[in-house]
């Protein structure tokens, strides 16, 4: 594929969004230092502006169909990379907007907060383009460094420190595994580019190497059995960072997983399908069952996130283009529903300073808007029509049933019912229980904006997903060799009207 953007003819322009973001985040840092009088909220808006420019740039690339590779194929820009970049940038915008009020709680380094968030976003944008083992390692670590700091940002809070420490130690361990896995794979094949590795036979070194790499990526996405950092880190981290962690790094890690499994390991599909089936079943079941017992909403969403990842892995296990489309679509629905739910958590936490589920009692009486939004987001996570989550789940199941993964589908369906229980427990608290304190809660405009975006996304993706389905189908065209694409039946109309 050749580069077709006719600006100056320089290939470096493929990285234009990343370059803009790099400059912008330096700008944010400089503004923060140079104008100490400036209210820190302005930095939030400044960051959002920058991200909006980047987003516009990405959309423009996507519409124009820009694609190509850089640095001897280390950096690849294709429609899938663009999809994940748009997802990450969109999530970052929402997270920054949602952080505006929360940042008031920090006593120090309010300005650097935005810088760190943008830096992590930059790392994740590079992750979406990583095309060899080295760039995978570098971008993964690059995106995680920001998070190590951000998770421990509430300096006086013991839970936040614990979260940071836990995340750091396990994260570094995962990085070690990744590096070791890369060295083994490189030792066996002598190649580092994903398309060139294209393993055709298992050798012990390759098996161990890929298992280590998978373990490290599994740590990123929080799949069982690599999930142990998730609940404590989610619980202790500042809530906007929890929201950020729950979607953006996972999405970016899926970009790498897709390239790794579908490009490098395509020939060995029967072997890794089993691995993914196991991990998926464990994640769904463990996440959903443990979530039932949670008293803290952040922990509950953490466990529900583990279960959702199990759901997404069904699509990966399907190992077809349709499975991949389903993953992309599911991530979109998950972005809106999960970020929306966390936005409500942030709004409530800003107002009553509590994340306990018990304190959500009677939320409907105190703020009908927040309760309704939470209802929509939770039901979308549970997969209830007409919300986005339902279409996402169904898409995944359709991809899986075409590959005859019956066990996975049955476990997935049973888990829908289990998850319904704990989501409804929150709904019960909000709508049925009476509040102890009846004072109304007033939501700030920036939080309202985030929640409205989440609501709009959840409803539109659920009711009219056609353009989005077409988008994800187009984004994964390069994988159409994986399995025969779904033959579309010509519209059969026995009754002409």
């Amino acid at each position: 594929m050749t580069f077709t953007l006719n600006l100056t003819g320089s290939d470096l322009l493929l990285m234009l969004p990343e370059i803009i973001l790099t400059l912008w985040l330096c700008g944010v840092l400089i503004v923060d230092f140079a104008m100490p009088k400036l209210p820190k909220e302005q930095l939030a808006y400044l960051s959002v502006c920058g991200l909006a420019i980047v987003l516009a740039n990405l959309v423009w690339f996507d519409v124009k169909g820009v694609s190509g590779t850089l640095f001897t194929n280390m950096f690849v820009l294709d429609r899938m990379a663009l999809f994940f970049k748009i997802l990450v940038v969109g999530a970052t915008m929402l997270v920054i907007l949602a952080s505006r009020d929360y940042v008031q709680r920090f006593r120090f380094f309010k300005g650097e907060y935005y810088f760190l968030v943008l830096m992590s976003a930059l790392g994740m944008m590079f992750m979406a383009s990583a095309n060899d083992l080295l760039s995978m390692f570098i971008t993964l670590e690059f995106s995680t460094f920001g998070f190590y700091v951000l998770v421990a940002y509430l300096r006086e809070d013991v839970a936040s420190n614990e979260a940071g420490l836990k995340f750091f130690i396990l994260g570094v361990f995962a990085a070690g595994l990744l590096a070791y896995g890369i060295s083994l794979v490189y030792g066996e094949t002598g190649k580092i580019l994903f398309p060139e590795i294209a393993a055709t036979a298992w050798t012990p070194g390759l098996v161990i190497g890929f298992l280590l790499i998978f373990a490290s990526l599994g740590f990123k996405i929080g799949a069982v059995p690599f999930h142990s950092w998730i609940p404590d880190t989610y619980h202790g981290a500042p809530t906007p960072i929890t929201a950020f962690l729950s979607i953006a790094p996972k999405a970016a890690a899926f970009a790498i997983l897709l390239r790794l499994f579908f490009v490098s390991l395509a020939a060995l599909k029967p072997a890794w399908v089993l691995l993914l089936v196991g991990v998926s079943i464990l994640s769904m079941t463990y996440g959903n069952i443990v979530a039932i017992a949670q008293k803290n909403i952040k922990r509950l969403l953490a466990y529900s996130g583990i279960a959702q990842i199990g759901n997404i892995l069904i699509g990966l296990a399907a190992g077809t283009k349709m499975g991949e489309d389903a993953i992309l679509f599911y991530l979109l629905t998950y972005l809106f529903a999960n970020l929306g739910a966390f936005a409500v958590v942030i709004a409530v936490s800003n107002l009553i300073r509590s994340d306990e589920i018990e304190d959500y009692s009677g939320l409907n009486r105190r703020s009908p808007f927040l309760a309704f939004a939470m209802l929509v987001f939770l039901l979308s996570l549970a997969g209830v029509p007409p919300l986005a989550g339902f279409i996402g789940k169904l898409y995944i199941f359709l991809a899986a049933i075409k590959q005859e993964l019956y066990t996975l589908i049955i476990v997935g369906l049973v888990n829908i019912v289990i998850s319904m229980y704990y989501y409804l427990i929150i709904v019960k608290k909000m709508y049925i229980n009476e509040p102890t304190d009846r004072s109304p809660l007033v939501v700030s405009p920036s939080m309202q904006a985030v929640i409205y975006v989440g609501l709009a996304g959840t409803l539109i993706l659920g009711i009219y997903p056609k353009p989005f389905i077409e988008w994800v189908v187009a984004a994964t065209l390069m994988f159409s060799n994986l399995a025969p694409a779904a033959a579309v039946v010509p519209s059969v109309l026995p009754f002409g009207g």
Partner: protein
Amino acid sequence: MAEYTLLYILFAPFVGSILLLFIPNRRALPVRLVAAGSAFVSLIASLYLFYAYDPAKGGFQFIQKYEWSKELGISFYLGVDGIGTPLVLASSILLFAGIFISWHIKDRIKEFYIFLLVLAAATIGVFMCLDLFFLYFFYEMSVLPMYLLLGMWGSHTKNYLAMTSPEEREKRDSVGFIFNFGSNSKEYAAMKLVLFLSAGAVLALMGILLIYKFSGLNTFDILVLREQAKFSGPLATLIWLLIFFGFASIAPIWPLHSWSPVGHAAAPAATSMLHAGVLMKLGHFSIIRVAFEILPQTTRELMPIAAILCVFSIMYGGFVAYYAKDTKYVIGYSSSSHMGYVFLGMAALDYISLSGAVLYMFAHAMATGMLFAMAGWVYDQTHTRDIPSLGGLVNRMPFIASCFIIACMASIGMPGTVNFIAEVMIIVGSWNKYPFQVIVAVVGIVLTMAYLLRMMRGIFYGPTVEQYSHAHDAVGWVDRMPLLLMIATSIFFGIFPGHFYNIIRSGVDPLIARITEVVPLKTDGQTNNKLSAVSYQPSAQRSEGHKLSADR
């Protein structure tokens, strides 16, 4: 204009619920008027639908088809046949009546009407969907509003409320207590309902996914699947069982029924009406639409399962209703008992009996709607559902009492009401195939008479209880109109069932012909504009003189 009738019926309540979002909660009257207005649009459109549906032409009419996702083979495909049309009408009548029945709700009116409208619209959606995906979409969508309606505006049982000491409080909220019959909280009832129905829905979804996979057609279009999908052997049996038990859980057939009376009892009046009146019929309807249409051979082989289970439904429901002391439990169990009749009518796979089953769904919707509406009125006035503590209310509320008598008579199946015709059709139609079940059904009618009259005596007659001397009758038109509407519907179609019968037969005949293979299927897969595939000759059984060109 007229070809969009289905869209009006379906989207009027949705639009109403969206409008309600923008009305402030403290202004009660606009909220009620918007809800009533949107339900009225739906009602008028479905009356038009009912009379504009052409039984001579038969088949699916008022077709609307919009592509929804080409990649997944889903289209938004609406159309009604002779089975869907009466049920659409029943839903919109009950929705309209239900809005007036709940006119006096004070707490969070806006939310109440939003959820009620969404519930009703989703139910209507199922009755007119010709796409498996959307059938499931609306089906699942109708379940969730129930949770909030029960939880927020429902009522606890008497035994539950009586448990006030600390140990009892702990006991009543413990998990082990959930098996205690009749002592349930509304939260428990709501959760049980949603989990049961979701579990059923998930079974059905598995069946739908298997249909999608093994038909190999990459479509959810029921009509295409009906003509072209071929299933046989264990796979067909498996799919059929998944579909049947998945949807029968909402119907509710005997071993899967336990959520239903609990849910009815906890629900506010309008919700019980919709729930017992139309939500339960989603089960029968979906079985007819999916299992009967797509798997006709398997239906013929396996439908005796329903004939066996319906005996338990009828007798078990009847006896429990006889011994229950809670007004809503009596009506709830009577509903699940009466749904056994519908299963009997379906199981016999006969022209008359299946028509009777469809008619019975409509008739039962009206009768049970009235009963729940009045049980709700009595509860609002006395704040109890406990029959032994009530009595002599006829002096306080003569209008309600007389309506209650009519409703009981309708429920029993007195000549003059549409229930009578339906019951007779089921009994006559099933006699050849299932004489034992018919005898049980007749005993069931006697039982119905026993428990309904007993409840009526308990509530309205006997010595007057002083405690309830403040209770008053329904005097305003707002309170009387919905009851009169349902009574009038029930009696009108009891006396003039002609058009109704023609409509139902136009839907039932081709279906039964396919299942019983009066005419073997012709599967040339023609996709011309005509109602294709089966050229259907009138059989000896349907020589009633109706001109039905119900060819599919």
